[in-house]
């Protein structure tokens, strides 16, 4: 996934990757990644829970909008902080 993101970024398309394993993110270094605390198979949290899924997506979109980030930006998702 990081390799796809890198190619898109090289061609001017900003990306944000949902990332399930920190170990992999630190090795591959996607440009912008939201590190989520969910098991594999559940990248956007809970099935049939649109609010929880949207909270993850919103946090990811906010990384795209954050001008202070620098690559590689590996940011933890914290649902508690978002209320």
């Amino acid at each position, binding site marked *: 996934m990081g390799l796809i993101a890198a*190619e*898109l970024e090289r061609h001017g398309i900003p990306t944000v*990757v949902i990332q399930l394993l920190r170990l992999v993110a630190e090795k591959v270094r996607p440009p912008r990644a939201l590190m989520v605390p969910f098991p594999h198979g559940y*990248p956007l949290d809970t099935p049939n829970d*649109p609010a929880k899924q949207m909270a993850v997506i919103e946090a990811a979109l906010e990384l795209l909008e954050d*001008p202070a980030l620098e*690559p*590689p930006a590996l940011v933890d998702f914290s649902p508690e902080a978002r209320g």
Partner: protein
Amino acid sequence: MGDMSEFSLPVRAFIKTYRWRRIDPVPWAPLKKPLSESRVGLVSTAGLTLIGQKPCSKEVKGGDPCYREIPWDTEVSQLVENHRSESWDHTGVEQDMNVAFPLDRMRELLEQGRVGSLAERYLSFMGSVTSPGRMVRDIIPLACDNLLRQEVEAALLVPV
């Protein structure tokens, strides 16, 4: 955080010893305009295809790097999950494809005005490509051209 303890010992050992391709230098493209004015694309590695669409092969050694196009207005009930890996729990995706391929959430972002428009076609890879040479050389550039032709201005990438 997704946790290594989810996996069997052989899978854990693979993840730790696999020669992951390090992106260096790390490229960086900032948004050119607000998301509310931008066209947003979606890329998945959950191995999803439309009913009747040929899935990526589960037999290709090192993983099939192919991708399929999924129109933005597809209903999740029209998707089939074909991912070859048994190292993750498929139950959630079977219950609600949006948990890995958020077709409904993307349409809601559009309805809310959070994004300006959506790509006409999203890209669905299978992932689990352990020999990514051909993927990097041939397929990812095709996928990139695909999104550029669709004038995608930001992309959300969701693994599984």
